[in-house]
């Protein structure tokens, strides 16, 4: 089994606060992967709000958040176990994030020893 990181991206910080129904959908999706014993790491949420997000650039330039220059921001990640990247992609397809204009990047994990 290989491991793949699923990286969630959202367009609008306003979508970051899910409604109870959205939360249930999200948890159902996560629970479904865990129920197949394919969740390697339940990951974390990355807060996009002011004060919780800064970007450090060369020459000690620090800006607030990642959203000044790019339109999307990373809202979180999980790590799944799958035989192939296609299987990981299939898992990602069921995520409700697409309903609110988000996307998921699937990346194979190369573990540091």
């Amino acid at each position, binding site marked *: 089994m290989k491991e793949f990181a699923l990286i969630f991206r959202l367009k609008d910080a306003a979508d970051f606060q899910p409604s109870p129904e959205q939360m*249930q959908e999200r*948890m*159902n999706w*996560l*629970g*479904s992967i*865990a*129920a*197949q*014993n394919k*969740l390697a790491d*339940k990951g974390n949420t990355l807060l996009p709000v002011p004060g919780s997000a800064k970007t450090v650039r060369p020459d000690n330039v620090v800006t607030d958040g990642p959203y000044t220059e790019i339109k999307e921001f990373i809202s979180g990640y999980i790590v799944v176990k799958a035989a192939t990247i296609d299987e990981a992609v299939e898992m990602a397809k069921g995520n409700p994030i697409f309903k609110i204009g988000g996307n998921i990047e699937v990346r194979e994990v190369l573990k540091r020893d």
Partner: protein
Amino acid sequence: MTAVLCRHFGLKHIETAEDIASDTFLKASENWAINGVPDNPAAWLYAVAKNKIKDYFKRISVFEAQVKEVIKQNETEAEPDFEFNQQNISDSQLAMIFAVCNPNNSAKSQICLALQILCGFSIEEIANAFLTKSETVKKCLHRARTNLRNDNFQIQSLRKTEIQSRLDTVLKILYLLFNEGYFSKTNDQLIRKKLCSESVRLALVLTENSLTNTPQTNALLALMCFQSSRLEARTNSKGEAILFDKQDKSRWDKSLIERGCFYLVNATNGNEISKYHIEAGIAYWHTTPTDKNKWQHILQLYNQLILIEYSPVTALNRTFAFAKVYGREKAIPEAEKLNLKDSSYYHGLLGYLYAESDIDKAVYHYEKAAQLTKSRTEKQTLTKEIERLKEENCR
């Protein structure tokens, strides 16, 4: 009683302690048969045990005196000053629970030991509960006892650090002990109930000491209370299992449900959420009347539980809850993704999910489940269901 004695003499003398305890009960059965049961049977028993210990140490010290010259030292040991009072009894039981739940032994042998030493089960009763041979249980217990004796766990002391480091193991063993009763392979109702009530008793001992009265302990106890409340309703007079949906809810034990709620509230005194909290939460929702959100709550708790710890049973139960919320049709792909083809419960679940839409497939899965299950009553229930579906198909 064995626990109190052992705490005093150390685990090395566990056999002696057990001998004295059983001698005491033997004497009681002789004496009480003739003179009737005394006013305070517990006090009577402990008084007799105390005398027997004195006799035992007198004998030992006489023997030791002839062999060794360190009589003085032995005499101080020979007159131990201890009391069988309530505090000592509950402390000793607690110490014994912690001694028995020794991670050096396998979970199974810890359970066997707990049943024998803490719950006073006979080897036959243990073998019966596990559906194994007495000989196997005997060997298992022998190995476990040797390990215990070699372990330097100090039963006399109940120090904070030791208790904290071992509490997780203790809770896990009590959890397994309870499940052994609740989901037991044996059809012997008496043994099942005894296993459940003994685990509740031991968990109660934990709540009596401030060091072990943690939110987790309370959550586990709440879980046990909620589950126990359904023990009577779960089987019919023939000992056949009654599925949750078909249980007579008036046979649920209301007082146990109330106690479960009490301990569940106690369990929220803290920030930690353990799997016992979530399982107790699930068990709580099961005791409530069906409203539109009930199964959504249960499903969300199962989602959390499966994130804490994967187990095939949790995965299957989660899918059942999913079907209750979103309908059987939508749950079928969820169930098939689990791919637990060797599990009778997996096929049982798929049989249930297909029963409304595709009777052939439902029958196929129920038949698979009946082949795979080891439980006789389970097989009967499944066979009945298959016959019912086939009849429905003919109509």
